[in-house]
């Protein structure tokens, strides 16, 4: 019995997928949170740096501006930029400048393109807006936080002396390095997340395999049990101390016991067969032996008096009777053989032929027969066998019934079976006899052969039929024989 190791809808796949999904969900959530926090932290750091840089220039600027010392202003701007590039690896100053309140350049990190004492050459609407905003601030402030638009961050620091605005320091830091830094840490986090997911799915697979492997083995074992192939059950390896191990142990124990039980049953069946065979042999010997003794006596007497016609006349009927009895017994034993030969089929109306035989069997006893044969003429039956079954059951009931008893015969038809029911309100079958009911030569009647029900059993069995008996002492007995329709039609 082979099956895919991971059936697509199997527990193992579901387990693995669930664990993977849970691990992935948790890992990705944590990863996303870390990435977001990282980004925020980097951004805050960058803003602090920018503010610090702008502030550092603004602190020393008032004297230089008042003394018109452009060179010192420029040098403090340059020193700020050098300090920034030395001390902060991930920071790149895009530009830095000092402007007077009219917007003229007092110093610029790119002096070649931004001449001293002139307005900024590349001055657009955005630049104007920034400059206007920078004049409004009283403390170092971050102006551009909309990083996605500009790709830089601008810190401005006003230069005040005695409450008079002398100028503004403006420092622009690139976001590119920040992006790259965040990207690098994101890659690390994504990598770790994927590794976690991979680990999770691996563990999930391991756990589900570990759980479902014994389950699969047990399923196979149970299927083997249900199909009767007990030899197919292999013991499930018990590797664990947990519930699965206990289950596997219990299953192994059960399977072992079932195998033992089956072999025991087989032995019992064999011995029962031998017992039945012995009982049949003993019965045959007994039944045949009884008349044989009388027959031998008759023959002995006739030998001694071969010329006595009176004896011949007296003993011949006895011989005839004794031999007939033996013949009946043999015929009964061979009934199966006979009915095997008679494969003739007929429509079910042939059951009606039995009615007269049964009535004659009742003879003049005070017994009521209810006859309710509803099978239509289109239903074909094996006439000889079915007739024999019904006749034997009816005769059995009639013999068991006391006077004023009622015996009923009825038929039913289902989609693929016909059901024959014989019911009586006789004394019922004592419980202790029920197991021997269909044994050959088992009888409770003085003159019974004990073969009637045995024949019913053999015939029903030959047609894959089922016999159900319901009986209660003092209430009556019902025999229900269910025969497959297809078998009847052939």
């Amino acid at each position, binding site marked *: 019995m082979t099956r895919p190791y991971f059936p697509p809808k199997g527990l193992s796949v579901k387990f693995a997928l669930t664990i993977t999904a849970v691990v992935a969900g948790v890992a990705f959530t944590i990863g996303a949170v870390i990435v977001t926090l990282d980004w925020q932290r980097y951004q805050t750091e960058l803003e602090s740096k920018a503010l610090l840089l702008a502030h550092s220039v603004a602190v020393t600027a008032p004297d230089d501006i008042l003394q018109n*010392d*452009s*060179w010192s202003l*420029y040098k403090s701007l340059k*020193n700020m930029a050098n300090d920034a590039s*030395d001390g902060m690896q991930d920071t790149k100053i895009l530009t830095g400048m000092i402007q007077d309140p009219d917007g003229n350049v007092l110093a610029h990190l790119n*002096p*070649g393109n931004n001449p001293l*004492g002139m307005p900024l050459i590349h001055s657009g609407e955005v630049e104007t807006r920034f400059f206007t905003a920078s004049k409004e601030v009283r403390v170092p402030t971050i102006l551009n936080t909309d990083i996605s638009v500009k790709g830089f961050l601008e810190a401005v620091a006003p230069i005040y002396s005695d409450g008079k605005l002398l100028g503004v320091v403006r420092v622009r830091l690139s976001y590119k390095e920040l992006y790259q830094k965040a990207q690098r840490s994101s890659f690390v986090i994504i990598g770790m997340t994927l590794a976690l997911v991979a680990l999770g799915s691996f563990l999930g697979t391991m756990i589900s395999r570990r759980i479902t492997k014994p389950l699969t083995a047990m399923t196979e074992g149970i299927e083997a049990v249900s199909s009767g192939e007990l030899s197919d059950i292999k013991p499930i390896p018990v590797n664990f101390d947990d519930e699965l191990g206990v289950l596997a142990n219990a299953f192994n124990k059960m399977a072992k016991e079932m195998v033992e039980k089956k072999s025991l049953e087989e032995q019992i069946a064999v011995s029962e067969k031998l017992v039945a065979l012995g009982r049949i042999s003993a019965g045959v010997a007994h039944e045949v032996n009884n008349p044989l003794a009388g027959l031998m006596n008759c023959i002995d007497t006739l030998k001694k008096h071969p010329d006595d016609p009176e004896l011949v006349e007296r003993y011949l009927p006895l011989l005839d009777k004794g031999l007939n009895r033996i013949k009946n017994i043999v015929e009964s034993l061979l009934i199966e053989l006979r009915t095997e030969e008679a494969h003739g089929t007929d429509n079910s109306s042939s059951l009606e032929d039995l009615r007269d035989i049964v009535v004659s069997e009742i003879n003049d006893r005070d017994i009521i027969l209810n006859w309710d044969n509803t099978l239509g003429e289109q239903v074909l039956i094996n006439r000889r066998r079915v007739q024999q079954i019904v006749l034997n059951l009816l005769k059995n009931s009639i013999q068991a019934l006391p006077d004023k008893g009622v015996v009923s015969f009825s038929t039913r038809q289902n989609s693929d079976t016909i059901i024959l029911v014989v019911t009586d309100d006789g004394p019922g079958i004592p419980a202790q006899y029920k197991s021997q009911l269909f044994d050959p030569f088992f009888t409770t009647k003085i003159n019974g052969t004990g073969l009637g029900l045995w024949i019913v059993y053999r015939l029903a069995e030959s047609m894959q039929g089922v016999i159900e008996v319901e009986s209660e002492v003092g209430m009556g007995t019902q025999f229900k024989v269910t025969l497959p329709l297809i078998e009847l039609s052939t």
Partner: protein
Amino acid sequence: MNKSWLTAIWLSVLLCISMGHNTRAESLETAEAVEPIRFGLTAVVVRENLRFLDQWAHYLSKKMSQPVEFVRRRSYREVMDLLVSGSLDFAWICGFPYVQNRDPEFIKLISIPVYRGNPLYHSFIIVHKDSPYQTLDDLQDKVFAYSDPDSNSGYLYPQYLLAEKGTNKEAFFRQTFFTFNHAETVEAVAERFADGGAVDSYIWEYLQEFSPELATKTRVIKQSPAFGFPPLVARLGVDFETVWQMKNIITGMDKDPDGRKFLEGLKLDGFGDPRPDLFDNIREMVASVRAAQPGGGPVTYGTEVNTGITE
């Protein structure tokens, strides 16, 4: 080279120098009880070679049998102030301060450096090498960097040129500023912070060799006539013996292996005898500039002519 790093080195070296000097001064003080000879320098000379100056001071101390220490000040004005107050004994100043009228006179010329065979140098008007400017006129309404307001090559000469043109020298350039250092004037021009600048030819040529990354970005568009090289002066109050000894040591450096080493470092041939007439053309320039000034008064120390602030 990195500026902040240099500053750190500069500070630590300065600290070492001063500590070294203190120790030496103390030991000498206890032995001979002598005050150190204080020699004033401005950053106009050579800015970056502090270790060199330390060794040179040590050399002079040994020769003088008396501690000599270099005192650096940002501007000539500060050096002159220290001389007049008696805080300095000697100083290496510029021709322009030297020719100023002093009443009473408080300095005396002791030696003039010999550069490339002559005690002469020039003023260079420089621009960025990629700029379109070819003459001083091209720099009108541009930004101009001066060195020191008392520097001949870095201030007086361009002032003289403007006076010669008859233009209003305050209005000719859009903006001017002082770097107080010829090397930084070169830097300002090289980085295009200034469109033009006036520098000492000796320093500019020195930087071509020792700081080419900046200096080669500049180009000379005008060279002045030869001027007397910035001279060494002694304060008049210093005793004759010390001045005579110092002069001999300095002028004899080219005959001494150790001294030649320092001269090589300074890119000088030696120190020669004073020839006051060397500075006559500077005197003439001062007169021209004075004549062109609205007030026209004499330029002397104590008058507020060059404050270092341009309005």
